[in-house]
């Protein structure tokens, strides 16, 4: 993936030992054929090793990617013996599914919800791991830091089913908070099923799950900052906040930009399972996002072509977003995602 590699011609075959007097420019045809055979003889075990992974991706990634033709079909699962035969037999309808999709107000509701949640989380979630990483990095006791890290990384490994379960048990109508408030004679608030505050709830869940995990990459970047910079600036009279502003944050900048790009490229994906699990409790109006929209229209109601059109639209917008964000990072003078060395 590196640019250096991309611009350098690939060295074909084993490098001939220096000083054998080989002609500088042998006949091009020979030169291309025999190293290929030699390379095949040398490299075939590598190709064999790559084969199982490549095959799995072909079947479960690229074949479904091609299967997106269903978005242009009036797909009928009963044509043929299985989904693949039905795919081959279903009639094409051009952009009909997309026309239907863009005319559906429920789709635009889901679209708006998705963008609102992404924007909300960019403001209220994205900066938190940076702050926690800086705080952890300032701890002098390695033992304390290790303990905190062990605890806060853990929820990252919980499934969304578990995370939502924990939230229901703590904050739900029959949960711990309601229980304590009722004991105190207060009326417990509706937290888990209130559509108006749902955006805060899902962000709180995401923070609970991934705040700790999100610090890892920032901690690594902080460890890479040259301590001499801090010492020199402290000697020059820079206080704690000025050092944070002029040394720490610039040190984190490439990582922040990288993660922002990835997040923007994924702007139309918010935790799918998280929303699917809570959609029924909160209602479609607040909890429907693009992914759950696809699920409910395609899998649950069987309108596959329509659902696939929504999915394909989302994938194409996502692709454009990530390429644009990457271009923007280059404009800012950052390395971005695709041109790393």
């Amino acid at each position, binding site marked *: *993936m590196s640019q250096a590699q991309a611009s350098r011609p690939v060295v074909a075959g084993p490098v001939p030992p220096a000083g054998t007097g080989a002609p500088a420019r042998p006949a091009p045809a020979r030169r291309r054929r025999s190293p290929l055979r030699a390379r095949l003889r040398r490299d075939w075990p590598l190709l064999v090793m*790559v084969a199982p992974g490549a095959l799995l*991706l072909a079947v479960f990634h690229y074949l479904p990617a091609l299967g997106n033709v269903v978005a242009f079909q009036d797909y009928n699962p009963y044509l043929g013996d299985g989904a693949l035969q039905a795919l081959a037999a279903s009639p094409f309808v051009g952009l009909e599914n997309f026309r239907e999709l863009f005319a559906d107000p429920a789709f635009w509701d889901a679209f708006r919800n998705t963008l609102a949640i992404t924007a909300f989380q960019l403001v209220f979630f994205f900066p938190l791991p940076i702050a926690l990483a800086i705080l952890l990095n*300032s701890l002098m006791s390695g033992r304390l830091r290790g303990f905190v890290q062990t605890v*806060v990384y853990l929820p990252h490994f919980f499934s969304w089913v578990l995370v939502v379960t924990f939230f229901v048990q703590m904050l739900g109508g029959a949960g711990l908070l309601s229980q304590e408030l009722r004991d105190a004679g207060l009326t417990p608030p509706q937290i888990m099923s209130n559509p108006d505050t749902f955006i805060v709830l899902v962000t709180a869940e995401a923070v609970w799950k991934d705040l700790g995990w999100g610090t890892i990459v920032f901690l690594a970047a902080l460890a890479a900052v040259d301590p001499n910079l801090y010492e020199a600036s402290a000697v020059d009279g820079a206080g704690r906040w000025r050092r944070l502003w002029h040394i720490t944050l610039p040190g984190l900048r490439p990582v922040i930009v990288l993660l922002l790009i990835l997040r923007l490229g994924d702007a139309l994906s918010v935790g799918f399972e998280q929303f699917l699990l809570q959609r029924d409790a909160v209602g479609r109006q607040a909890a429907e996002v693009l992914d759950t929209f696809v699920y409910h229209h395609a899998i649950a109601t069987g309108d596959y072509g329509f659902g696939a059109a929504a999915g394909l639209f989302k994938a194409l917008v996502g692709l454009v977003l990530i390429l644009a964000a990457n271009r923007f990072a280059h404009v800012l003078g950052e390395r971005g995602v695709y041109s790393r060395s």
Partner: protein
Amino acid sequence: MTTMPRRRHPSRPAWEEEPGAAAQAATGTVLTVVVLAVLVPLWVVLLTSVSSRESINAAGGLVVVPRELDFSAYRIIFSGGQITKALLVSTLVTVAGTALSLVVTVLAAYGLSRPGSLMHRGLLFYFLLTFLIHPGLVPHYLVVTGLGLKDSLWALILPTAVSVFNLVVVRAFFQNIPAELLDSARLDGAGEFRILWRIVLPLSKAVIAVVGLFYAVGYWNTWFNALLYIDDNEKFPIQRVLQSYILAGQAPQTSGTVGAALPPALAIKMAVVVVTVAPIALVYPFVQRHFTRGVIVGAIKG
């Protein structure tokens, strides 16, 4: 109390000022809140799962302060009902899936670790392109069901068997192994498989442990694919049971003796949560020390 000058921390650099009392109090508060936010729910769920009916009634539900312990909820869920079956299914999927994923990932990562080898750039592009192209739910569903994997546990394994992210992590690690080591083995006549098995793998235990944990957690947590592909509730994995039992409120069949004093439903529910968390909480601390710069950040730099 505050008149005593605080001792400087021995590892604090000489140029760095000692934080003030307010700053220290703020740091302490933040860290305490963050840690308790994780530990309190775990504690309450664990304690409720081992509490007797009297303790649960006295607490009015979830138990925060231990009173009387009673482990009968665990006897119920391990007595051969749906939860026992789901735990077996999840264990099988996790063990078989992780083994398959590690083999495929390690082989492919090694096969892709040598720039200049035959078709190297093309193959690498083929793998990395998956980051940009997402097939989408509907065609994925059509392919998996079209292959006849409906109600097969393979549907929980094969579609997620290769994570290109994990592959990139392993590949980056392999590429940091000194080339001289591999070259000398090659001069001694060792083939690539032998080099991988005898030289590369023994040096890569840390990355294998981390990636193995990622895969295992992924398989253990599989829920949505089970919702899509598994209709037979005899084959439900534990997350699917947890969701239908606790979040959707459908009680699973347990084969406890009918009429005998059953433990309270809340204790059983919490016991299901505990057995879902337990494998992760038990394995993760041993692997956590390998989440070092080398492993995680190697991946970010891809």
